[in-house]
């Protein structure tokens, strides 16, 4: 009996403890964030397992907001996040509504062209954080001073894979790229990565997207005949690298190649910012919290939106007061760092607004490796062995 009552009183007091810090603060600072996701009509993914969940990215926003709010509870800070689903036709009107409402932090899940348009609309009014597009030009010639990127760039992702392949001494690559603009950009990133790390592309082939349904009943019957033929007569190579941003063909490559070749890139061993299999550096806690909240495993977009929210939360914790200019200056300063389950602090590159981050190399249900590989050194930060370095940038902010 004594123990029971003691337990009960302990619980009551602990509830009071939670409420106390917020009550002690004189006034609450509210941080308003919006997440805008643009969904364009397009073909279905090859595998039904890859169908996008309705709350893609928004679930990551939910977790980021909850994490920020728990911390904010001790500091007299509250966080509210508005999520907006838009189409390419409605996105600008939706953005204008957010700007008119005075929301100063806007996280985007959109393609490169739309992201630039939204950043230009925001101007001095809002800080835009790109959590979706991996496009290199967005960090290069199309960069913007008010635009940060928490999603890794194509250059970072391809460098991450290249480092591992070179470490493995798989230096001869057979590159197959898709026919869409994004696929060609990704292919260019692989060519750049090969040159950077001393690999050779023995041949490049383009897989034309001829349209049609990505999935059909018994579709594998034809695929089993088409893919070996498509990949035959390539020069000797250690690995086939697929650049299929659009998801048209790469998933069909493993086990269907003419030669007995491993596959990497857009299928097989894939460079990713996140994987629900990732457990190192406390990541299990993220996975459990996310899965409890969303009822599904986290995707790259969820993790990236969570990171964007945590960028705001971390800056709020460190600067207090809620002043937009102070927040923005802090985020861009060398005092800012983010802990995001990647084993080291993540910081923004001042030359293009890109968040430095390790990249997971995911093979099916396991994280096979994490780049940068320790053998690749850098004079400033090992993370700058991934992507476009200060001396190479085309960004003029």
């Amino acid at each position, binding site marked *: 009996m004594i123990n029971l009552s003691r337990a009960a009183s302990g619980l009551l*007091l*602990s509830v009071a403890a939670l409420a106390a810090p917020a009550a002690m603060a004189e006034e609450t600072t509210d941080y308003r964030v919006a997440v805008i996701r643009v969904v364009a009509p397009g073909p279905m993914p090859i595998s039904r397992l890859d169908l996008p969940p309705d709350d893609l990215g928004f679930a990551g926003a939910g977790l980021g907001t909850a994490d920020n709010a728990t*911390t904010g509870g001790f500091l007299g800070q509250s966080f509210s996040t508005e999520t907006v689903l838009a189409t390419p036709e409605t996105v600008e009107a939706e953005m204008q509504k957010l700007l008119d409402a005075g929301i100063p932090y806007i996280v985007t899940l959109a393609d490169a062209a739309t992201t630039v348009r939204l950043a230009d609309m925001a101007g001095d009014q809002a800080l835009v954080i790109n959590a979706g597009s991996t496009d290199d030009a967005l960090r290069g010639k199309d960069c913007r001073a008010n635009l940060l990127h928490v999603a890794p760039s194509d250059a970072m992702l391809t460098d991450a894979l290249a480092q591992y392949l070179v470490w493995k001494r798989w230096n001869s690559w057979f590159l197959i790229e898709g026919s869409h603009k994004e696929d060609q950009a990704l292919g260019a990133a692989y060519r750049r990565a090969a040159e950077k790390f001393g690999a050779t592309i023995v041949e490049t082939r383009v897989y034309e997207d001829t349209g049609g349904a990505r999935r059909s009943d018994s579709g594998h019957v034809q695929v089993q005949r088409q893919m070996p033929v498509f990949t035959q007569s390539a020069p000797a190579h250690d690995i086939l690298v697929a650049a299929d941003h659009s998801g048209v063909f790469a998933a069909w490559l493993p086990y269907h190649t003419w030669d007995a070749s491993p596959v990497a890139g857009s299928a097989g061993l894939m460079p990713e910012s996140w994987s629900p299999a990732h457990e190192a550096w406390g990541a*299990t806690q993220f996975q459990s919290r996310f899965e409890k909240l969303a009822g599904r495993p986290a995707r790259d977009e969820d993790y990236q939106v969570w990171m964007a929210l945590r960028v705001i939360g971390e800056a709020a914790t460190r600067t207090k007061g809620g002043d937009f200019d102070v927040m923005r200056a802090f985020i861009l300063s060398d005092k800012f760092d983010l802990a995001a389950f990647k084993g*080291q602090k993540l910081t923004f590159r001042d030359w293009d607004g890109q968040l430095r981050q390790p990249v997971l190399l995911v093979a099916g249900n396991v994280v096979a490796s994490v780049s940068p590989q320790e053998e690749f050194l850098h004079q400033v930060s090992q*993370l700058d062995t991934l992507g476009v370095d200060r001396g190479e940038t085309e960004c003029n902010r």
Partner: protein
Amino acid sequence: MRRSVTRSVTQPVMRLALACSAALLAGPALADKIFVSNEKGNTVTVLDSASLEVIHTITGMQRPRGITASPDGKHIYVCASDDNLVRVYDSATYEELPSLPSGPDPELFVLHPSGNPLFIANEDDNIVTVVDVVTRQVLAEVPVGVEPEGMGVSPDGKIVVNTSETTNMAHMIDTTSYEIVANVLVDSRPRFAEYTPDGKILFVTAEIGGTVSVIDTATNEITKTIKFDVAGILPEALQPVGLRVTADGAKAYVALGPANRVAVVDVASLEVTNYLLVGQRVWQLAFSPDGKFLYTTNGNSNDISVIDTATDEVTVSVPVGEQPWGVVAVKTE
């Protein structure tokens, strides 16, 4: 290679000789026992501190991490993270005793100086669970920040500190009311909290921030932030995790994770005086009961290193189980 073999053979022999002569003077006390939790091996390795031989391996637990002992050294408590409970063992017979409830995914804990209760950080639920080790009842659940991890207790037992890894705070909890009485913002991903023996200073390590915050316990203000610098090691690899202060309060040892080093901090000046090369990904630290040795768990090289605290020399490394995480040493009856 040859040198290390010679060293690892002669060193324990010398220590055994020393321990024996000490034993002759001190009476029946023999060598101490070192208990190491192996996170991946799902075991606790028991070593004889004099011979540094593995004398027993305790099995039957999932993902053991935090490990501590009762003040009398008779009971060993282990956070079995994937079992969602605290397993308890008799340090003499290695017999498993009734487990304690821990809340989900316990990682680290701290025992009140009196030996009861146990304060456990539950990473998944943003709470600290308080458990009576005698009645095995949960006394309270204290809501804290996101991902509670490090646990420390003041020498007078009045305050328990919890660090929350994503909230980046040290939460000071009153051990009688279970109420949070103060929150101190520290650097990114705080992992461990430890008081000086006089209770005046609280050290909090920040793994991602790469620093140790020095907190004045009278004011709960950070008076200094200790930074680390090792030639040839990238700054992002300097990740402070475990920290222990010597019984005389003169020195603090800080495990620097993937930098594979233990930093020695002079507590009076709060300056780093030395960096000791140990095994890979050094995680947690524990002193021998007499304070003459410091043991380090080296997660990626599957061994523990032994540091002579008089000379600050790393004398030997000893293989244990897979991915050693925590360590505690107790006197043998």
